[in-house]
């Protein structure tokens, strides 16, 4: 166990696996009995072989990226593998057609993922199977045997690979789903100096495209729980104002901005019906406000002599609100949503910001300079109850704006580790870091269910 993992003695209790406080995140991710060891064969295609490279790499990458599995090295595989359940034999002398060939050394897999695709009536059809290699009876070994259909092209092959992988992940206890989820972010790509637009991409980095075309500075997006709305801060009218876009029509929907020098950093409540934001409407310091989804019925929540920004309401408990404030260096605070009961969440070391609730409402990811110089941000995860925390990045550039994926196991964040700010995902234990963007400057990602 590495030091980092040992440190993760955080109460990851309610992360869908029913673990108790004090257990290791590696156990949380692995499942209580250790990671299932998957042997994922290279699928072949009947009339669709030209798409199988994309299919196989997507399937492997999704399963590996989930952090739920120990994926066995293909170099250890037998020469043959079954493509259909009827190919399975009870024993075949290590030729690869018996489940026992995969259960024993050198593969040591607990489960075999196999199948094939075929061009069928103009569609790309996948026959996907997952069998428990430790069962002697082929019938009782079947865990999954499902059929999927996609378009007869590479996009279709990638799509059915995502679907199959997602079902396998769910089968093994994965909560939430990345399937169809998208990441919204700020990009300078193609924009004039000082301008930026809100962009969107698939969670694996594909299909990157602009959501807004305001030819202004659009920053700090938030996505509604159902993925239908993106709120962001716009400079199109001069001073910062909140705008909300429909993610399907790509049009603005009305939002009433108070008369103020600053209305910014909108975020959504767990039921999607309230907007929390920061505003100077009372004159003076920016304070926390809540309003209906159209900006009406607004009410001031905080009354403190400090700059207050980044309100984030607990998705499971609307009475609990995180925010970022001074004085004396920015820290993460919490308060009741009526403004009372203000207390520090971070312990006052360094500077802290960017709190993001885990879907379980019990854990947060955030940025902190603790242990480093001012401005050297790293990603941390904290149990909101016990305040125990663990550091996920270690000064590989500046690492900011962590946001949880809908599956609760992944985190998207911005990092300058490649020189400029780009968008990355990682598992919640800090492993499996993947760079999703590379063109222009890309920052402030948020992860929507669609």
């Amino acid at each position: 166990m590495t030091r980092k993992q040992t440190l993760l003695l955080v109460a990851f209790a309610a992360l869908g696996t029913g673990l108790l406080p004090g257990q290791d995140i590696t156990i949380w991710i692995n499942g209580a009995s250790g990671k299932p060891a998957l042997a994922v064969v290279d699928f072949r295609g009947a009339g669709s072989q030209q798409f199988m490279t994309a299919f196989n790499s997507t399937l492997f990458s999704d399963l590996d990226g989930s952090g739920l599995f120990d994926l066995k090295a293909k170099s250890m595989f037998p020469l043959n593998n079954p493509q259909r359940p009827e190919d399975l034999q009870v024993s075949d002398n290590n030729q690869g057609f018996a489940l026992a060939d995969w259960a024993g050394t050198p593969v040591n897999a607990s489960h075999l993922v196999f199948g094939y695709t075929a061009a069928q009536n103009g569609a790309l059809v996948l026959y996907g199977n997952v069998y428990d290699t430790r069962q002697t009876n082929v019938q009782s070994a079947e865990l999954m045997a499902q059929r999927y259909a996609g378009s007869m092209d590479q996009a279709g092959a990638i799509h059915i690979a995502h679907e199959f992988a997602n079902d396998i992940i769910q089968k093994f206890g994965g909560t939430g789903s990345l399937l169809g989820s998208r990441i919204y972010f700020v990009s300078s790509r193609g924009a004039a100096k000082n301008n930026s637009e809100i962009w969107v991409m698939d969670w694996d980095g594909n299909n990157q495209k602009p959501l807004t075309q305001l030819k202004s500075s659009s920053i700090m997006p938030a996505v509604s729980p159902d993925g239908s709305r993106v709120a962001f801060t716009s400079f199109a009218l001069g001073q910062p104002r909140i705008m909300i876009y429909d993610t399907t029509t790509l049009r603005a929907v009305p939002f009433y901005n108070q008369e103020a020098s600053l209305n910014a950093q909108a975020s959504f409540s767990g039921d999607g019906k309230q907007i929390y934001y920061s505003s100077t409407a009372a004159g003076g310091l920016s304070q926390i406000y809540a309003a209906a989804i159209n900006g009406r019925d607004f009410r001031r929540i905080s009354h403190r002599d400090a700059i207050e920004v980044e309100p984030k309401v607990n998705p499971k408990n609307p009475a609990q609100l995180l925010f970022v404030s001074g004085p004396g260096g920015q820290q993460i605070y919490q308060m009741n949503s009526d403004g009372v009961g203000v207390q520090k969440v971070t312990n006052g070391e360094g500077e802290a910001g960017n709190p993001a609730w885990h879907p379980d409402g019990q854990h947060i990811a955030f940025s902190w300079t603790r242990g480093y110089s001012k401005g050297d941000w790293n990603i941390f995860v904290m149990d909101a109850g016990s305040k125990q925390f663990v550091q996920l990045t270690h000064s590989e550039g500046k690492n900011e704006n962590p946001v949880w994926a809908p599956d609760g196991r992944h985190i998207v964040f911005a990092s300058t580790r490649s020189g400029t700010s780009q968008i990355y995902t990682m598992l919640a234990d800090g492993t499996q870091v993947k760079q999703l963007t590379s063109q222009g400057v890309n920052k402030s990602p948020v992860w929507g269910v669609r």
Partner: protein
Amino acid sequence: MMKTSKRVTLTLAMSVVMLASACKKKVVIPPPPPPPQQQTQTPAPPPTGAQRAVISEFAVEPSTIERGQSATLRWNITGAGAVAINTGIGTVPAAGTRRVVPAETTTYTITASGPGGDVTASATVTVTAPVPPPAQMRPAPTATFESLVESELHDALFDYDSNNISDSARTVLTANAEALKKIFADFPRATIIVEGHCDERGSAEYNLGLGDRRSTAARDFIAQLGIPADRLKTVSYGKERPACNEASEGCYQKNRRAHFSAGQ
């Protein structure tokens, strides 16, 4: 000390601007110097038996005109049987005047014919191009306003995570207020944007709130010095628009600023 030198600079700048704008209005192409008055009388020819005419006067007044204006030829001749002026004027009395409107520089020649032969004299009218109409007046010389804002108003700098007006910021803002009084006197409808900026180290979100504090603190300070607050708009850019991009304290300090820019 600083205040005085600032005022001098401004006055100088203003007079240069006024000079420049005066020039722009007229755009006078200085006319070429008028040629020497051509009132040459042909030297008296050697006396002959016959009496020659005498041109006692042939002049044009004024000798330089702008195109479209007129000049007057005046002549007085004795002893001539016939007097004529070229350029299509033709026969004229022995003494008289004639208004001419030449389109370009023209030399008029008068010829007096008498029994003793012809005598001639010439006079030239120099025609200059008329002054072009003044350039279209722009509603407000925006570029000038913007350049004044850029040259006369300076950044007030702040400490880290602070919107306190330090002594040095106080000096800068006081000078800015003085300069603004003069600028607003010349541009009575113009507005100024007081931008609040931060260095790159705090979070973007917190810095948006901090930049707002800096812009309003700077605005309030100069408003209290007599600059009408409704001419001063604020905007916080947080750390979105750094003036300097290096990771050094020198650069951070430049970015922690209230910056003054021209409004719409």
